[in-house]
């Protein structure tokens, strides 16, 4: 059985879920702001357990709490009386949750529908960028569960 797991960038908070429900992208300004992004990408998580650490929460209104890692900032959850949703990018495999619906079109940014047509900057176009990318030694938690984290050398 392939586990549905994920967590924050630094690895202080990790979770597992038994199943994922419908995935959505929410264009409302509160999701934009909470994620620092163009939309909130969320998927319902069923049977969610925190396997390392636990998120901090910000009550963004009286009916919703938003969970995040207070060690690295990764947004992790949207929690309300109807259940808990997980930030799709925090999943070890975000491809498990292709969004099926968009909500709150009133706040959709005007250029959202043009994003797919943007040009790509590809490797080989800038030696300086390529050198920078090659020099990165990531401290990001890997996209799988780990026995101990961070590795001793990095702690």
């Amino acid at each position: 059985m392939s586990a549905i797991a994920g967590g924050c960038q630094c690895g202080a908070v990790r979770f597992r879920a038994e199943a994922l429900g419908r995935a959505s992208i929410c264009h409302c300004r509160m999701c934009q702001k909470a994620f620092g992004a163009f939309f909130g990408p969320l998927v319902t998580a069923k049977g969610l357990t925190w396997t390392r650490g636990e998120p901090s929460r910000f009550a963004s209104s009286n009916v919703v709490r938003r969970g995040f890692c207070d060690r690295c900032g990764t947004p992790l959850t949207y929690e309300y009386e109807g259940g808990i949703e997980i930030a799709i990018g925090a999943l070890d495999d975000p491809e498990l949750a292709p969004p099926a619906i968009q909500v709150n079109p009133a706040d959709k940014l005007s250029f959202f529908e043009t994003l797919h047509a943007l040009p790509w900057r590809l490797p080989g176009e800038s030696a300086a960028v390529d050198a920078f990318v090659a020099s990165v030694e990531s401290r990001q938690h890997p996209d799988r569960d780990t026995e101990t984290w961070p590795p001793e050398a990095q702690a």
Partner: protein
Amino acid sequence: MSRFAVLPIEMSGGCQCGAVRYHATRFTDNAHLCHCRMCQKAVGNLFAALVGAPKDAVTWTRGTPARFRSSAHVDRGYCRDCGTPLFYDNLEGDRISFTIGSLDEPVRFKPRTHEGIEGRMPWFFELDAINEGHATEFESEDWAAAIKASSRQHPDHDTDVWPAAGEASR
């Protein structure tokens, strides 16, 4: 020396709860989406939407962001009180890249390019074609009204005092 033209845009931004606010007197003309797995994970999203500002054009007008050093070269900034991802900071560079959604007027930073193609979701190009829903739990009138009436999100403009009087007791 930046490779990008400087935009004469002046704008503030900050996190959802308003504990951290910043102001930039100009930005670099490099709004982009980065699809790399590190950006995805840092912002819990399908990509990071970022725009640069020269570091000497930026002031932190309220609070101080927390930082996670995601590699030796880069800090990721966020609010320790509410978690909003705020920036990507190449420590050796002369600009800081803000998350566009944290700016007060994100609509003014239309992305120009995609980066990090290796991490792109295979269904990215289909996002704008997925169903636009109406009858969802998000959109029931009572639910929307409850959120609007009790939102603790900082408004999309600078404030003299925050949280507003009475807000702290919520």
